[in-house]
């Protein structure tokens, strides 16, 4: 019954999205203004209905109702509760339902609270949001119904991919989706502003918190995804330039550029057309990412949909949404008047530089990700990997980071480089000292040396905007910027350290044998069988001592799941302030002469990774910086709103008194 109810709510939500589109569009015409009143409530109800449909799907998963096809295919009654819930979005249909739910709720939220823009622009924005939503509702209802029944119902479900049975999965996809779909709001704002010709600082101020919010979630999602790949795959790497990773990086790059150009537009009324364009590009990248990941073109743990019809459907949605937005942009770009001017040495100019560099990196990543698909269509199979992505993106990332150190110190509109050159001597000196220091100490990889030298200078430079200020009084948004930029420096240092200082040992050890890796001494204490709710494993007890200090126990496993049957190695990590010990247990070593003979030696892979956790610490700092900036924006808006409300009341009182 619940499945049918969920489906009915989904259809109703889709119908309301249609009403929202029609009413929002009619409200823009001279005669239809009366219809405008229903648009906001409809948007709210639509979001609530989508959320209710999603909640009923979660409930079906919790109950393991195997008469629902999706549950039967992806769940199992013996699974822990958290993975039953997480299993809801660990598949194609469920994740698309999560997508429309987030989209509906975000639209409803905008409708509920956003009062700064002219009502006409809001109508166009909500109509735009409904237009995009409708496409995804159609996709869900026509090509990927999550509530489809199965007759006869199987006794038991198929289970969930063991790789996805991890606490990280419970939060990683919803976080990324909040980011992806949050950008749809920026997209709709851009459409609304273009339609009503209201591209200006007010539009940027209204859009900025939404972009910031989406960007924070994207940052956290990418950071979590990177850490997940790091400890889950057991390869010790943190970024593989896998198309799926690129799919999340591209919207982030566009959103970062959008965030900065929206700041210029809000503060200085410049970069109007560019900001609108980025609003369109950012969400387009979200959809391209979804298309790549969900279409089944790429095979990976993320590719659920192997049905080519679905790929075609998403591609069509992509073409319609992006195409329509670009046509609108082309028609209206002429009416977007030029904004305020600025000089080459000014904060605007440095932000323009940052934008162009981010867009270039975006282009590099996009081309590298799509290239294999294009050549494959022509019959040639290639794959593009780190040897392309890393140096090519560094070509643009390094100048961007240099300008990032200078830009925040410059004044708006017009500045002289002489004024800041003295201040910049400090980060420059730090960079040079770091370069010489690391160069002498034997860091040979060019990439690592660049990262390790730039990072300390960048860290110093990112703190400089705080100099000469009363720290307690510095505005929250300034703190946000400082912390986000500092986080970038911290992450950069971790990336450089990984290439430069990582020590690796790979051996087959007997129980009781000790291995040295970097400053660590690791003893294989015992190998014991252990059992979990839906798996059995061999677990190694590793007694690890850092530089002769009191030992820590690490317990990596070689884990075998029985639904579906699969073996994965579960790594064990130990984190210190100066790095991370990473251990993986393999299989029992085979005898060289006869494979069947047990040798009593176990394969161990150990890494000592100095400062590598700084990569994710940096990512979290970047997100925290964004959060502080968001907090400051929201607080300012609330203050402004209460002041205005109070003013209205006072004015009302005075009018009453005068009337009396």
């Amino acid at each position, binding site marked *: 019954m619940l499945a049918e109810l969920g489906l009915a709510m989904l259809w109703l939500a889709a119908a309301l999205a249609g009403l929202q589109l029609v009413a929002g569009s009619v409200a823009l015409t001279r005669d239809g203004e009366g219809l405008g009143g229903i648009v906001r409530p409809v948007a709210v109800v639509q979001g609530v209905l989508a959320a209710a449909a999603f909640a009923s799907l979660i409930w079906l998963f919790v109950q393991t109702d195997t008469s629902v096809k999706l549950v039967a295919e992806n769940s199992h009654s013996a699974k822990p509760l958290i993975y039953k819930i997480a299993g809801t979005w660990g598949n194609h249909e469920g994740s698309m339902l999560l997508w429309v739910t987030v989209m509906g709720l975000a639209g409803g939220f905008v409708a509920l609270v956003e009062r700064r823009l002219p009502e006409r622009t809001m109508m166009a924005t909500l109509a735009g949001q409904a237009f995009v939503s409708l496409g995804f509702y159609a996709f869900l209802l026509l090509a990927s119904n999550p509530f489809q029944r199965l007759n006869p119902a199987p006794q038991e479900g198929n289970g969930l991919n063991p790789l996805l049975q991890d606490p990280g999965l419970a939060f990683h996809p919803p976080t990324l989706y909040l980011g992806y779909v949050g950008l749809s709001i920026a997209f709709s704002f851009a459409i609304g502003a273009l339609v009503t010709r209201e591209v200006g600082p007010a539009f940027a101020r209204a859009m900025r918190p939404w972009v910031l919010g989406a960007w924070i979630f994207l940052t956290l999602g990418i950071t979590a995804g990177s850490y997940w790949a790091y400890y889950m795959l057991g390869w010790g790497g943190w970024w593989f330039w896998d198309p799926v990773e690129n799919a999340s990086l591209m919207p982030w790059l566009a959103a970062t550029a959008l965030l900065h150009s929206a700041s210029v537009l809000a503060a200085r009324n410049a970069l109007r057309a560019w900001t609108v364009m980025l609003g369109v590009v950012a969400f387009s990248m979200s959809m391209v990412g979804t298309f790549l990941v969900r279409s089944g073109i790429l095979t990976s743990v993320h590719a659920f949909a192997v049905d080519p019809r679905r790929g075609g459907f998403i591609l069509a949605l992509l073409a319609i949404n992006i195409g329509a937005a670009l046509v609108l942009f082309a028609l209206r770009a002429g009416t977007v008047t030029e904004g305020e001017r600025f000089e080459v040495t000014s904060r605007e100019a440095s932000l323009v530089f940052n934008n162009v560099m981010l867009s270039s990196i975006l*282009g590099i990543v996009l081309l590298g990700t799509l*290239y294999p698909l294009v050549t494959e269509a022509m019959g040639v*199979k290639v794959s593009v990997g780190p040897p392309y992505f890393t140096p090519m993106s560094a070509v643009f990332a390094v100048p961007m980071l240099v300008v990032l150190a200078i830009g925040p110190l410059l004044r708006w509109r017009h500045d002289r480089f002489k004024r800041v050159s003295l201040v910049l001597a400090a980060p420059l000196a730090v960079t040079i000292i770091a370069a010489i220091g690391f160069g002498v100490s034997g860091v040979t990889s060019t990439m690592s040396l660049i990262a390790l030298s730039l990072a300390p200078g960048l860290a110093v430079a990112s703190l400089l905007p705080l100099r000469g200020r009363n720290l307690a009084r510095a505005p929250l948004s300034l703190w946000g910027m400082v912390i986000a930029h500092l986080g970038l420096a911290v992450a950069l240092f971790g990336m450089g350290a990984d290439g430069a200082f990582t020590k690796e040992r790979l051996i087959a050890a007997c129980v009781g044998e000790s291995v040295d890796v970097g400053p660590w001494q690791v003893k294989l204490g015992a190998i014991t069988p252990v059992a979990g709710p839906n798996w059995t494993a061999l677990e190694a007890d590793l007694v690890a001592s850092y530089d002769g200090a009191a030992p820590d126990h690490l317990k990596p496993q070689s884990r075998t799941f029985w639904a579906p049957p699969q073996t994965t190695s579960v790594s064990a990590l130990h984190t210190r302030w100066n790095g991370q010990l990473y251990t993986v247990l393999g299989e029992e070593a085979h005898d060289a002469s006869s494979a069947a003979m047990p040798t009593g030696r176990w394969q161990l892979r150990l890494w000592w990774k100095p400062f590598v956790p700084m990569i994710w610490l940096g990512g979290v700092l970047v997100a925290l910086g964004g959060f502080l900036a968001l907090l400051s924006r929201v607080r300012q808006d609330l203050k402004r709103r209460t002041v205005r409300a109070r003013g209205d009341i006072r004015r009302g009182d005075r009018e009453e008194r005068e009337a009396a």
Partner: protein
Amino acid sequence: MTGTGLRAKHQRLVLLGVALAVLLVAGLLAAWALRNQASYFYVPSEILAKPPEADRSVRLGGMVVRGSMKDAPDGVTVNFLVTDGKQQVPVRFAGIRPALFVEGSGVVAEGHWTDGLFTADNLLAKHDEKYTPREMQGMTTDQAHKAIAETK
């Protein structure tokens, strides 16, 4: 108040021009690098015909020849042959093997080609849920249809 008169007048155009120029450079750079990358993925007969430089990291894909897997005495290194149905090349891998890496199955090895030996840093096994390389999908029709047919 602002720079030269000409620039002040056409600042928008200048900005647009600069941005487009940089993006064009990025595109050209990407195209150039991708052309060099086109031979990133090899099958045995290709790697023998056109060996890549030793310092290039490349991928080698094919089927693990039955009976060719030999464990080294150190317990972590394995030597085996990879074939595309026409030629076969020796591969050495030291590390923890993916669970589905067995003789007769498909494999993609990431590593370097030096003097007739492929040294793999990483193995991606077919059907391994961790990562199924997309190059393996087409192996059935393109290179090793016979070899794959008998493993199914």
